[in-house]
């Protein structure tokens, strides 16, 4: 499979990176950011929305920094599992991503900004041409969505990153940097419904780092991932639950791989956490979370199954952190 041609830019500082991005924007040239490349490179080889320019974040010092509370976007997933200062929940989640080989290249930023995935989209160019393209990669044809036909306003491709629900549950913030300067927002506000839009990144903006709040290490967490194989596979469903042990008011649950974005389930948790009853609430809450997700048929396992098991994954995550 031949990589389509592109120009690779190697900025050495944040300013330089932003400068290149601004210049390309001015010239109306399309570009992508690349960190580890484990998502972008296969997509390019499949000619899924390849761009003429790619800007690598690899040489930017701030992006490569890692501390207890701040993790640069270029941090390798394998680093998360070996550095002893990383939050145990993040270690757990990172160790379940893809394969050990992929984790040596794949990065935190790349995982959080992962492109959404779909059976009708993650295919070669010939394949997509034969279905007359799809809404997400329509090649200018205005093609319809192939998962839910007769609507071409929303892309329902699935977000299948593993780190996001865990960082979200821990209240992480992300620093975004671009031509208009730097801004820091909650990770849960970062994602934006629609498989094409995916997140709030503005043109020329990239995620520099993710930071945890000061009390993050007071939280116990558990991440439950459904996948067919214990290596390689993206999550088919993922549930993360955290709390400060014994304090039901601190309970937080987030999910991934069920919709176009990962999301927190504050309203369901809020409904039950205040009047927790051992043994019964856990089932009610798990069921409420199951009802709140709407997976569609575009990954390896059927959506009704993925939805059903959300209940079990939630229950297991809660039990794991002693919240029963």
């Amino acid at each position, binding site marked *: *499979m*031949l990589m389509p*041609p592109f120009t690779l830019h190697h900025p050495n500082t944040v300013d330089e990176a932003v400068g290149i991005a601004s210049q390309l924007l001015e010239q109306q040239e399309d570009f992508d950011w690349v960190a580890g490349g484990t998502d972008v490179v296969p997509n390019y080889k499949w000619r899924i929305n390849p761009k003429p320019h790619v800007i690598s974040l690899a040489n930017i010092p701030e992006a490569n920094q890692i501390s207890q509370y701040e993790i640069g976007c270029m941090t390798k997933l394998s680093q998360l599992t070996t550095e002893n200062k990383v939050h145990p929940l993040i270690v757990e989640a990172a160790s379940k991503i893809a*394969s050990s080989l992929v984790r040596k290249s794949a990065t935190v930023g790349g995982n959080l900004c992962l492109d959404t995935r779909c*059976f*009708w989209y*993650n*295919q*070669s160019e*010939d*394949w997509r*041409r*034969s*279905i007359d393209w799809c809404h997400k990669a329509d090649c200018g044809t205005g093609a319809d969505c*192939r998962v839910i036909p007769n609507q071409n306003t929303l892309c329902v491709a699935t977000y299948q990153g593993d780190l996001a629900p865990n960082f979200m549950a821990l209240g992480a913030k992300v620093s975004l940097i671009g031509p208009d300067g730097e801004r820091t927002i909650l990770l849960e506000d970062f994602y934006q419904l629609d498989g094409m839009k995916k997140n709030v990144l503005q043109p020329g903006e990239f995620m520099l780092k993710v930071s945890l709040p000061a009390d993050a290490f007071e939280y116990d967490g558990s991440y439950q991932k*459904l996948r*067919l*194989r*214990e*290596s*390689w*596979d993206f999550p088919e469903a993922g549930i993360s639950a955290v709390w400060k042990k014994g304090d039901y008011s601190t309970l937080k649950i987030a999910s991934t791989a069920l919709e176009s974005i990962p999301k927190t389930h504050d309203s369901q948790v809020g409904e039950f956490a205040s009047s927790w009853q051992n043994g019964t609430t856990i089932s009610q809450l798990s069921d409420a979370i199951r009802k709140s997700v709407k997976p569609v048929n575009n990954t*390896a*396992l*059927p959506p*009704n*199954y993925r939805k*059903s*098991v959300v209940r*079990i994954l939630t229950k297991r995550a809660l039990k794991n952190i002693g919240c029963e």
Partner: protein
Amino acid sequence: MSAGYRQQPGNRSSKRTDGKRVAGKQVFPPPGSGGSRPVMKERDLDFIPESVGGKEPQPAGSHIHDRIRTGTVVGKSLSLVDSNAKVTGQAWYGDDVRLPNETIGKILRSPHHYAKIKSIDTSRVEALPGVISVATGQDAANSFGVLPVTKDEHAMAVEKVRHMGDLVACVCAETEAIAIEALSLFDIEWEVLEPVFDRKMGLEDVDEPIHWRGKYHLSRTNVQKRVFQEFGDRSLVDNPHAASHGKWSMEGVHHGFTEPHAVVAHWDPNGRLQLYTPQQVPHYTHRALSTVLDVPMHQINVIRTFVGGGFGGKSDPFPHEMCAAILSRKSGRPVRITFDREEVYWINRGRHPSDIEVKMTADDVGRISGFDIDALIDGGGFASFGHVTSYYNGVLATAPYELGSFHYTGARVWTNKPASGAMRGHGAVNTRCAVEVGLDEMAEQMAVDPIDLRLANLLPPHSRTITGFRITSNGMREALEEVRDGSKWDEKFRQLPLGKGIGVGCGFFISGSGLPIHWDPNRFPHATVHIQVDMDGGVTVHTGAADIGQGSTTAVAQVVAEVLALPIEMIHVRSHESDTAPVDLGSYSSRVTFMNANAAIRAALEIREQILNAAWDILGYHPNTLVLNDRRIYYKHDPSIGVSYLKALHKAQEDKGSLIASGAYRSPPMGGVHKGAAAGLAPAYSFSAYVAEVDVDVELGLVKCTNVWAAHDCGKALNPLAVKGQIIGSCHMGLGQVLSEKMVYGRTGHLQNANLLEYKIPSVHEMPHVVPIIIESCDPEGPFGAKEAGEGPLLPILPAVVNAVYDAVGVRFRDLPLTPDIVYKGIERKRKSLKLDDCLELPNPRLEHGPMQEVLVARANEHKTRDKARQRTEDTSHYVNGVLFGFDPNIPLEDQVDGWRMATEPDPEQLAELGLAGKAWLKKTQREMGRDD
């Protein structure tokens, strides 16, 4: 020779540690010093059979090849002779071939499932700078196919395309980028036709069948082949004591080999085609190239590169091989075509997606009174091996059990999907799974142990199956006993807690197809091997056997080394080129070790005779009194009287030079005379029994196979290491099919997972702990007793896992693969039917032996004695399927019972009750309908 010349690198020191004279200045090694060891090795009595005075135990009796055993390599675990090349990255696979001035070929593939090509305009392609040549279906009108009876493929679509990804045209260019760009410049006018995806719809009449067979076409359906077979006494199935009836739906699976298809074609300066391709069956490619290109076979040299996994998926002659040759002929330059993974799935030839229905019955003494099998298999767009697959789905279920009757209806239909074909365990795997699970169910109804049910119904060694297959050696009983003991079955079966389960399955497979499909077996052999021994003592073996990783080159080298008592590094196998290799049918139907090694033994015996005669001349002792041992021949009663191998060899070479011998193998006449009798016929059969343990996540439906005890009867393990590798590899491949692998076709008929991320081959984490157990039943016709070990071991893993899942959760699954959603659904259904709140409260099955258990155990014990005597040929009486039901084996069965059937077409009154595939028999051929076109 100049003084400083060294024959071998290294070892320049003038001192030897053993103090002997330094060969130093001698340019060639002294006589008898071939190989890496300086002195003759002792005879290794541990690897010389008891029957000829050695210490190798022979529980299954002696073998005709025992007298030529030298204790050199047979039975020893050796690394494969090509392993160094592979582990150091020096093996040359298809895409490693780089010829000077090469061009890159790309194939234009159909974007439609089914369409007529009204016109192709290539002018824009040809105008693109860098494009060298373009070809379309018009450049190669001749059809080809792997089976002579079904040549339905073309290099590129001639009139219509039959599945998405079907070949339309091809182009070669200076670079890959230009070739890719060129593909977008073809102007094609299509007439899109109504596709068929559902195999059940393939049985219906349509306006435009995918292929047209003229007067043989079945009405206007898409049925490519239908089979009917009925044998035995059908009255036995009435009033059964136990019965199982299961309808299975099995998804298609792909071989998932590592190396994608790749080919390099080059017309050399003499105008001969040199074609490099990773082929399992180079000879068929050779034939097909000749047909398609209209060039005599002797003007084509097919060079088999190393094959990065085949498993049946590289055994058809492929259209891209034709494309490369056509483009190369047009351009006058070498053309290299390498597939993307997606193209690998589009050419497919994987296991057929199937609907299989199995009804079976047992009588009041626990005998299997009937197997009734119906198999509708989805062939995709082309015939490939499908003609054979249609038979195998039925006939390979006729053993290892003795049956009262056998009824099979099968049909293979064309659909607008990539073609199915042969895959490891060809045609036998799906039905085997259904049959073995049915037996488990019947055992449960009879309240008996399923292993005892099997043990009490096995065909003995040296017997005939109900359809007339000749069974020789048979290690089925021992295999079952071994896995029962190894797994501690009696302590676990039906006694494990919810979520944990143990299950058993058996297998039966051919060891070489009895019929060489391209020629008359009575006139030509199956396999031929040439051996040449030159003055240096090295032995060059020419064989056409295609090593696809299974170790056929090693097997051939081993048997030659064994016969000639030479270190294996003195045997050089040359098997890559059709120019130098004698014709061989290739690596399919698990034939290579059986047939090629037999041919190699014959050739080696001829050389052996010449050398021994020379030694006779020198020593004055008759060859019968001479011992052939490691590079030395000596007098049996006084080892000090002897001669080196080289000296004897040189004596033998006097006047004629290099020694040359040719050996061939042909199978004995065997089998019945009914239509289709040759399908499934083999000179020997392998048997296997597995016990699998699973761990089911009852809430999520995830199944993990944790332990497998895998016993396989390979006759004689020529190389136990290689046999174990095959067993473990088979387990892995079968596990994929039973737990996670499937080719997913979406609602538009597109293959949705043509890549290795979404096509779920088990990873190392999913691999159970496999205990390979080798059973040696010593086949009378196998080389040193060997039978196949490459395909048969795959069969039992599927039913063993399905049965284990039942043991774990009490739900019978009949949809493969057992992905968690399927298992979850089954468990939920059961939970709801039992009105339980939580699936963790499910009861799992338990067993209390019923009265039948004793009957079966007694019969099994009796049969054990019978089988042992037959295996060791202490009892040579005639045995045919039916003896268990009281028939006399010496009188034709049809003379003993009125209702004894032997039919290959249904009676008119049967038509109404035939199964799904059987419905194909409701249609008439064009000829029967009075049309002759």
